[in-house]
Each structure stands twice: as C-alpha cells, then as structure tokens.
C-alpha cells in the first residue's frame, strides 16, 4: 500500500540528508507503528507519504515513494488526498472550518464529491467516531480527545485507503487516548484501512501494532519487524518491555496481559528480595519519605546525576512552613463550577502529581496557585501570601508555573535575549538563567545563543521555560502537562531534574496524564474528578488502586506495590540471601 524505495530527503540549506536509505513497505490493511527518538526524521517519513515532503516543504527527495500505486513525484499532495489522509500533531491547526459537520465535509468538498454522497459519508463518520451529539458544535468548544476524533474523521470522509497519524494521542488523557485508539483499531479491522502512525507513548499503542518500523538514530537505516523483534533492539521502549528485559523474559512481553502471565516468578523473587531487606525499605516507594525516595531511585537514563547542577538552585527561604496552603477553595465559572471545596497543603521537598481527566480542574487549581484565577470562596496561600493580590514581581519569587504550552512564557526572539529578560524580571545576577539552561539540558550548549525559542525542539523549549521560571528561585514549582510531546529520553531527563530540585527543597506540583512519570517521581498523588479531590495519598496507594492511573509496572506486579522499573531493578540488584 505504502512503499518507500531507497528514499533520502535533504531539505534546502541542510548539508546532510534528514533521512536516508529508507526502504520498506506497509502492507494493505496493517497498522504500522513508526518509532524512534526525537529528531530522527519520523515526521519527514510520514509527510513524504502524503507528498507534503517535498512538494510543500521544498527540498530534494531521492528514491521513490508510492501510495496505492501513485508516485509522489508525479502526484502533488492534493492529488493524493483521496487515497491518503494525514492528521498532524496539533488538531487545532488542522481545522479549516468552525463546526464539526462542516469540518467533516470540507475534504470532500475540495474533492468535488456529489452532495448526496457527502451527506451520507458525514452521517456514517459521525456514527463511526461517536460524534453524532457533537455535530453542530463549534470545534473550539470540544475536548482534546473529541478534537482529535474530529480531525481523524475529517480525513476519513473521502474514504482514504491509508491513514497517516503523527502522535495522535500524545496530548490526550488516558481515557481520551483509548477512545481514539479504539477508533483506529476499528478502522483497521472493519474497513481494512492501512495506518502508519508515529507515537512517543508506546505503552499506549504498541498492542495495536501489526509491525513496527524503527528509526534508531538520525541518518541510520530503518528496520521493520514484528513488535517483539523490534522491541528487543529498540532504544525506545515502554515500561512493560523494560521490565521484561530486566526480568530476562524472552520473547519480550508487549502488553500488561502478556507480562502478568509470566510475572508470578518475578513477583516471588521480588517478595523474597523485599523480605530480606529492612522493613522500612520493603515497601519501596510506598509512601516513602521524599528524602528516602530521592536517594533510592537512580534515574534510568542519567548516570551522571550529580553533575546536573553546577550551582545548586536552592529555593529562597520561606516565611511559612508550607509551600502552599489551600483551604476550602471553590471556583465557579459559568456555566460549571471548576473546583469545589478543595483543601490541600504542600510541604517543601515534596513532589505531588495532580491527576484526573481533562477538564477535571487540574489546570484551574495550578492557575489559582499562581493567582491567575481568584478564588470564588475559600483561601489560597502560596509562600504565605495571597497569590492573586501579590504583585507579579514579588510572586515569582514564591511560586513558578510552567504552563502547558511553554511557548506562552517566551517572548523574546533569541535565547540570549530571553535569558537576559528573565534575569531582569527576577532581579537575579546576569547570567543566572543562561547557566540554568545549560545545567538543565547539557545538550543546549550546542545550540547557538541567537536561536529563536520557537525553533527549539519540545524538550529544549521546556528546559528554557523551566530555566526562566527557576531564575527567580521559587520554592514552589508548578508544571502543567510537562511531558507533552517528549520522547523517553527527554522525559527521563526531566524526571531527573525534578528529583534533584525536590531534593534541594523545592515543592513540586505536576498536573499530568503521564502515569509513568507520576509513578517515577511523585511522593503523593492527588486525584481530581469534576473539581473535587477524590483521592489524596502516597503515590503507590493511590495509583495502584486506580485502573486508569496505574502505571504498567504496578498493573503487572499487583497486588505488590511496585511503581517503576527502576524500583524493581534496585530491589533485584540487592538480592536477598536465598537468591
């Protein structure tokens, strides 16, 4: 269906090809997952299927790409629109019209299908994707999962034979991701659609893949194989595969179900290992004190942890024992109440993961803590002051928030200017922010100072925004959905940074859908539903009890309370006397 014949792509102005020697075929009716670290050219490969590379982007394509027998050299993207549907990373920049129904019809209008066919296909697609109740709604009022389904629906209506998806679930909460993936599976099974999809969150998608195409590194050749084959050699892998490697299982398990079947042996070993250790360390991570956790879980991807910070970023001293206190907080926003009777205390050195569905009130709570939203009733104190009454230049010394879109914090047009501005805003010594950037992301030294912040990769931009916020040394650090669009390596780096910050006494709150990240770094998990706190306790207790927020490791090893592969590794690495 989709054929790459020895393809290389070189963009204008680039000396090296972005991808080279790509040679593979996606058979009809299969779902093929394209995996690899960031910056290896996954998007280039995806976009050359629809012909956007090179017709839209410019550049040179060597070799040949064909879809359903059509050669992209002779067919422009618009002439492939009836055989390939492409959905990019950000559904919002995909939409041309403003209502669901019009959006579903837009592609067919461009192709010139007769009105009665359009009408029927719109109805079919609304049913297929479960969008019937939303047909007349403005797209901007939909949730992320609904928007993603509309984006998929809008390319399905012309009945393409192949679908190209670039990270369709990375911005979604687990439930919404399930919705989208269920739709994709239905397309493959019922309609025989061919799907080529790139996704960082392998733990969500790997069980749906028929084959995996792996791009191990920039410029390296692509290899195609069954998920088990590829996972054995891949540099990126989900926790279940990691656990399988640690436990030495072969073939590697790909789903929680596979792994559970084999895990009885591992559970036993772990129980023995745990039993042989002191009682305090037995329930690793289960409510352990922050200090204990910070010392016991070595980050997987960062052996050089102690060199993270050349200068310790000690938070400025606090006038109150709590980093923040929230008492009986309610926020009303027409037509719904966003938060109801929320009470929460944050202590220095503690890492709290705020979890819950999209729209549960996570962002609202974070925004209240920095004074972006005044409370309707109840009190909020951050660092001893009322945030929405504190002047901004004073507030940033008490609390810092990295918003969902780190770009919102960046105004200047070079990294250097951004850092100077941050120093000035925080009245910090010149150079503070720049040093922080390099500390947070040693790779950033290679990036010229006059780079535009918008030209950075997601991980680099997050590091820059984090550095800007940390320049004022706030004792309370808030992060909204920090792992959006990050690959495993960038996520591991972020986790390591946050652990160090917590060890230095920062209180950290992250609102996240990423259960694996929460499991790795959170001491405490607060679950929000419909604006109310429904669970608040040690990470292990809260997430293990929740089917949708449990990390893969805890699902596999339940009822034992293990959260991350690192913990398991550490426990096995200190074997008891009998093993």
């Amino acid at each position: 269906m989709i054929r790459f014949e020895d393809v290389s792509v070189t963009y204008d102005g680039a000396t090296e090809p972005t991808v080279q020697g790509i040679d593979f075929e996606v058979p009809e009716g299969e779902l093929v997952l394209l995996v690899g670290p960031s910056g290896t050219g996954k998007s280039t490969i995806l976009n050359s299927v629809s012909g956007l590379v090179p017709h839209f982007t410019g550049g040179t394509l060597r070799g040949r790409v064909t879809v359903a027998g059509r050669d992209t050299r002779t067919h422009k993207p618009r002439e492939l629109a009836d055989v390939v549907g492409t959905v990019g990373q950000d559904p919002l920049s995909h939409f041309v019209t403003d209502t669901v129904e019009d959006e579903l019809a837009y592609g067919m209008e461009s192709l010139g299908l007769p009105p009665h066919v359009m009408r029927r296909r719109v109805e079919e697609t609304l049913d297929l994707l479960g969008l019937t109740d939303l047909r007349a709604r403005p797209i901007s009022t939909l949730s992320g999962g609904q928007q993603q389904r509309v984006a998929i629906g809008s390319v399905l209506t012309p009945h393409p034979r192949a679908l190209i998806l670039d990270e369709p679930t990375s911005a979604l909460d687990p439930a919404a991701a399930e919705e989208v993936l269920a739709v994709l599976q239905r397309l493959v099974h019922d309609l025989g659609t061919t799907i080529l999809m790139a996704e960082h969150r392998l733990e969500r998608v790997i069980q749906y893949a028929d084959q995996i195409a792996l791009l191990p590194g920039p410029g390296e050749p692509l290899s195609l194989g069954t998920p088990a084959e590829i996972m054995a050699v891949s540099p990126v892998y989900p926790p279940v595969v990691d656990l399988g490697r640690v436990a030495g299982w072969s073939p590697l398990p790909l789903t929680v179900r596979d792994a559970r079947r084999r895990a009885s042996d591992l559970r036993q070993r772990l129980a023995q290992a745990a039993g042989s250790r002191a009682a305090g360390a037995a329930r690793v991570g289960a409510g352990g004190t922050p200090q204990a956790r910070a010392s016991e879980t070595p980050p997987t991807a960062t052996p050089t942890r102690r060199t993270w910070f050349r200068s310790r970023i000690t938070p400025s001293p606090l006038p109150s024992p709590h980093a923040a206190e929230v008492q009986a907080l309610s926020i009303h926003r027409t037509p719904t109440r966003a938060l109801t009777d929320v009470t929460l205390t944050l202590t220095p050195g503690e890492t709290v993961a705020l979890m819950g569905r999209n729209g549960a009130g996570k962002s609202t709570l974070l925004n209240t803590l920095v004074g972006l939203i005044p409370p309707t009733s109840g009190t909020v104190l951050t660092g001893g002051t009322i945030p929405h009454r504190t002047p901004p230049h004073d507030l940033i010394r008490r609390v810092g928030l990295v918003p969902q879109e780190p770009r919102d914090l960046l105004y200047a047009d070079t990294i250097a200017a951004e850092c100077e501005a941050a120093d000035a805003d925080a009245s910090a010594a010149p150079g503070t922010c720049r040093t922080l950037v390099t500390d947070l992301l040693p790779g950033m030294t290679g990036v010229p100072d006059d780079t535009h912040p918008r030209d950075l990769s997601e991980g680099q931009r997050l590091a820059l925004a984090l550095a800007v916020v940390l320049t004022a040394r706030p004792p309370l650090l808030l992060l909204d959905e920090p792992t959006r669009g990050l690959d495993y390596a960038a996520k591991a780096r972020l986790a390591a940074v946050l652990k160090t910050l917590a060890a230095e006494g920062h209180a950290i709150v992250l609102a996240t859908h990423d259960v694996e990240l929460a499991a790795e770094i959170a001491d405490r998990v607060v679950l929000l539903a419909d604006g109310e706190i429904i669970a608040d306790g040690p990470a292990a207790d809260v997430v293990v009890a929740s089917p949708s927020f449990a990390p893969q490791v805890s699902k596999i090893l339940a009822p034992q309370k293990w959260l991350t592969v690192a913990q398991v590794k550490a426990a096995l690495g200190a074997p008891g006397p009998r093993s």
Partner: protein
Amino acid sequence: MNVIHLGPRSIAALTLTSAVGVAALGWPFLAPPRSQLTAHATDAPWLFAGLLILLVVVVAATISESGLGPKAVAMLGVLAATGAALRPLGAGTAGIEPMFFLMVLSGRVLGPGFGFTLGGVSMFASALLTGGVGPWMPFQMLAMGWFAMGAGLLPGARRLRGRTELVLLAVYGFLAAFAYGTITNLAGWPFLSGTASNIAFQPDGSVPGNLARFFLYCVATSLGWDLGRALCTVVLTFTLGPAVLRALRRATRRAAFESAVTFEPR
C-alpha cells in the same frame, strides 16, 4: 518576496477596477454639472457601492485564478484574522487602529499582490465578524487594498533594511493612513444630501466650492480620528516595527514559499 504573483490579467483587472474606483470616489469633482451622475446625485453613491462590490469580486476571482496556493491562502486567512481582531481594539478610542500598521508591514514583506488581497479580505472578514456589512464595505475593501498594496510597491523591497526602511514605512504609513481616511470620507460625503447642509456636496456648485465644502466636512467629521490613526501607525512602526518585520520575514522563510522542489532517481 512576492507571495501572490500578479499576472498580466490580474494587473489589467486591478487597473480597470482602480480606475472605476477613482471615478466612484472622485465623481463629485470630476463630473461636470450637466453629466448624468450629477443629475442623479442622490442615487450615484448607491450605484457606485453596488458597482464596486461586483468589481472587487471580479478582481478577487482573477487573482484567485492565477494561483492562490494553500500557503498563501492560509497566511491570508491568518493575517486577515489578526487584522480583524485588531480592528475593534481601537474602535472606541480615537484612531488607535493597529490594523493599519499590520497592513503596511505585511504589504511590505509579502508583496503588492498579497497586500491588495489582504487589505480587501481583512475588511470583508472584519465586517462579517462584527456584523458590519454596509454600503461602506466595498469602498473600505478597495481603499485598504490600495493601502497595503502601496506598501508592497515601496522601493528597495529586497535591499533596504534597518533604520532607513523603518523611516520609509513610517512616512508611507502616515501619509497613507491619512489618505485612507480621506478616501472613506469621500465615499461617505455624497450621501449627505446637498440641500441639507452647507458642507454637503452641491451638484450644481463649482469644483473649488465643493472642494472647500469637502475640506470642511473632513475637518468637522474625522480630522482628529485620521490624525490619531496616522500617528498611531507611525509610533507602532518605530516601536514594534523591527520585531514584526522580523517575525513576518521569518514566517515567510519557514513557509518555504520559494524553495525548490527536486526529485532525483535512486
């Protein structure tokens, strides 16, 4: 950079439409008292409003035909939305209309063809957004189109940068913002019936007399407004100009409007 290339047909259509536009605006001074227009002075502005709608549509169709690629259309839509969103910002306060500044800079960076189209589309979109479609709309579309196109026709589009360019744009912005005000006044003036006021157009009056009346009409209705708008454009050009120019140039580079597409065999 010339994002929308105007072919000979588009240029011909644009010239003819502009000629009719000039007549539609300037007829009170151009038409002798014995002409048909002057004889039906109360109906003439309506005739021209209707005629201009048609002409603007025809020009738009001609420009569309000579090739509006997806990149140009998306950028047109986004910039027009920005312009339309900026327009109500200054509606209450005398003449603070940042839209003019954006039009000058976009016309400069993206070329005269794009400028003309952007000016027209922006006025149309903002009229639709605010529910402000009226007999003034075709005149505004044409005037704004000329305004942004003029910025694209300024000399040194490829070489001139830095301070000199800013001064050039500011001077143009000042004059053109004023001219825009005068043009819209000219469009609205004949609606004022001749016998109703001393500053209204008098079909049987002499040209100097009508000029004097028009001048007083401008002073009485919109001088403060026009001056505010012109000054606002100048101030914005000097303060935000460099950054916005950089942003626009960067965006056109990223959009790869002119980059070559090549294929090589294996």
